[in-house]
């Protein structure tokens, strides 16, 4: 049976259920970053420093790469904060 459009309630229940863990999210984002790095033969940190904020950024792949790079660090930061909080827990 073909999947059908989800109702708003089903959609929200599904996406808010918390099935995706931060390490899985990091793995997905890392894979995407590696794909860009291989394609452009440039490490993400170098790309971000050299390209982002300049007119050269106005390229479809570069826009996506920059968003992916920032996303990776947001998830990483959250994971580190959670680990730090749990380490401090009594």
């Amino acid at each position, binding site marked *: 049976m*073909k*999947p*059908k*459009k*989800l109702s*708003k309630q089903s*959609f*929200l229940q*599904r*996406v*808010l259920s918390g*099935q*995706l863990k*931060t390490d899985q*999210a990091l793995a*997905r*984002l890392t894979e*995407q970053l590696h794909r860009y790095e291989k394609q452009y033969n440039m490490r993400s940190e170098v790309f971000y420093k050299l390209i982002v904020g300049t*007119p050269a*950024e*106005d390229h*479809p792949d570069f*826009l*996506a790469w920059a*968003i*992916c790079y*920032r*996303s*990776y660090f*947001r*998830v990483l*930061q*959250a994971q580190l*904060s959670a680990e730090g909080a749990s380490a401090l827990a009594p």
Partner: protein
Amino acid sequence: MPRDAHSRRRIAERCWQVYDLISRHFQPAPDFHLEFPEAAELAILSGALQARVVISPQHTLIIHEEYEVREHELVVAFYSYMLLAEGDRVRLRADPLPHHRVDYRGHKLAHFPHHLHDEHGRIQSFSGRLEDFLARAAALIAR
């Protein structure tokens, strides 16, 4: 990173809006209804939606949105919308990078920094709203 329940809920609701808008404007492949919620789950953790949606045998939509919660309201802080044809050829794309101030006729952009690159690569004014981009993409495909 949207860690509190309020932020997660706001991002989930925005992802629903995007899902609903795409479903209303196009008839995406059935996998869309399985894959888009996965993209939304990642958006809740990462604060950014990244979705690639096949809307016809010849066309694909790429939707990237980066979110911030300001004073309890969700804001699309950055975006990149694209309509691709076969071979990943760009037919239409929009973003808010501040590198263009005028359209291809030399008129000031109506909603700077929002702008659109049309199928000829020309700069045009754009509202910054996803619904406007999707309407324009649908019209272009129907031509």
